[in-house]
């Protein structure tokens, strides 16, 4: 580089310190680092139990440079509701309250607290970092594990072919709760992610952002490939980037030509057992979902 200060496409300030224990190449740690850039310093963070909680706060240390609280696995949204009401009572209306919870802490264990929080309309930015299984305890399936993914509790054999249930569509469930801002994102598209979190922050009321975060040990790929794997998820249509503002659906990224899902699946150990027929079935599911979303986008 010719001796000039580089121009940065995203804010420079780091609010997550290094030294945290997330695995090399962790998509979820990257998600938190990027989201904090969007949320800014004046934020109180609540985290449920999960990868990010255990890796960023090994007592007596913390990686967070903003006030942070963890209570339990199931109640991040309830704690955030309380923090938000306390700030309101104190007349502090310039502080953002944000939740970081994994897929386990969101779609399974923390779901009722999340449902209650959005029903009551608390002004909280809820961010789900979705690595599609319980990773820090050893890759057990969650409600967000995609069909056919092998995990330690859904191993691939002759009868069971990995996860046999659909991925629980929590963003859509949030839309049905009437949440004013719902978005999906992926760490491989950082500017899109930051834009969405900034929008979520501005909303008066609850906002929900669901971020796909590739996981090297859990999904089975080299730590250097996190960004590529996330890109492939989006380019194949396995993960769709969209936002729903006051009920209005908008695709925020449309692949020029959707790549075959095989290109995504073949790169990961959790899908290595798949037969050609099974890959075709996943392709069909993705095609159907894409068609449905296209219709929504046209409305």
């Amino acid at each position, binding site marked *: 580089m010719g001796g000039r200060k*580089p121009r940065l*496409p995203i804010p420079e300030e780091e609010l997550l310190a*290094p030294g*945290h224990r997330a*695995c090399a190449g962790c998509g979820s740690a*990257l998600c938190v*680092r990027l989201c904090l850039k969007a949320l800014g310093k004046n934020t109180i963070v609540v985290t449920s139990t999960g990868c990010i909680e255990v890796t960023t706060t090994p007592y007596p*240390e913390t990686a967070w440079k903003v006030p942070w609280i963890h209570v339990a696995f199931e109640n991040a949204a309830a704690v955030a509701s309380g923090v938000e009401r306390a700030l309101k009572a104190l007349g502090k209306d310039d502080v953002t309250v944000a939740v970081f919870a994994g897929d386990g802490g969101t779609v399974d264990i923390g779901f009722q607290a999340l449902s209650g929080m959005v029903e009551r309309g608390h002004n909280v930015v809820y961010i789900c970092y979705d690595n599609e299984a319980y990773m820090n305890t050893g890759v057990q399936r969650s409600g967000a594990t995609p069909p056919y993914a092998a995990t330690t509790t859904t191993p691939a054999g002759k009868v069971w072919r990995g996860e046999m249930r659909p991925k629980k569509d929590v963003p859509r469930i949030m839309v049905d709760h009437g949440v004013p801002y719902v978005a999906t994102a992926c760490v491989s598209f950082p500017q899109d992610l930051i834009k969405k979190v900034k929008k979520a922050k501005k909303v008066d009321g609850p906002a929900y952002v669901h971020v796909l975060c590739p996981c090297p040990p859990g999904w089975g790929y080299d730590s*250097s490939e996190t960004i590529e794997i996330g890109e492939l998820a989006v380019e194949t249509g396995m993960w769709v980037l969209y936002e729903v503002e006051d009920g209005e659906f908008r695709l925020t990224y449309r692949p020029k030509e959707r790549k075959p899902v095989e290109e995504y699946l073949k790169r990961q150990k959790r899908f290595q057992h798949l037969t050609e027929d099974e890959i075709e079935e996943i392709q069909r599911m993705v095609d159907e979902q894409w068609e449905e979303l296209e219709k929504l986008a046209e409305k």
Partner: protein
Amino acid sequence: MGETEYTIGAVVREPGSTRRNKTGRWRVFRPVLDEEKCVGCAKCFMFCPDGCIRPTEDGFEIDYDYCKGCGICSKVCPTDAIEMVMEEEAE
């Protein structure tokens, strides 16, 4: 843990105190930046999960105290300006 004095509510008062833990020890491969090849696109800075790539007055620097050697920066660099080198060979 015998040495640790526990605070009430397990409160940690020092923000960003994981800096005490130098995760650079984890590294097997070290990312080495060739400043001649760097075009300043900042992709390495954007995608580092550990915030180990920082902008300087005339480019970028890599913080080897904390870099875990994941290799993301090398992979996303459009001009192959970052090479992963075996740690022993780099020293």
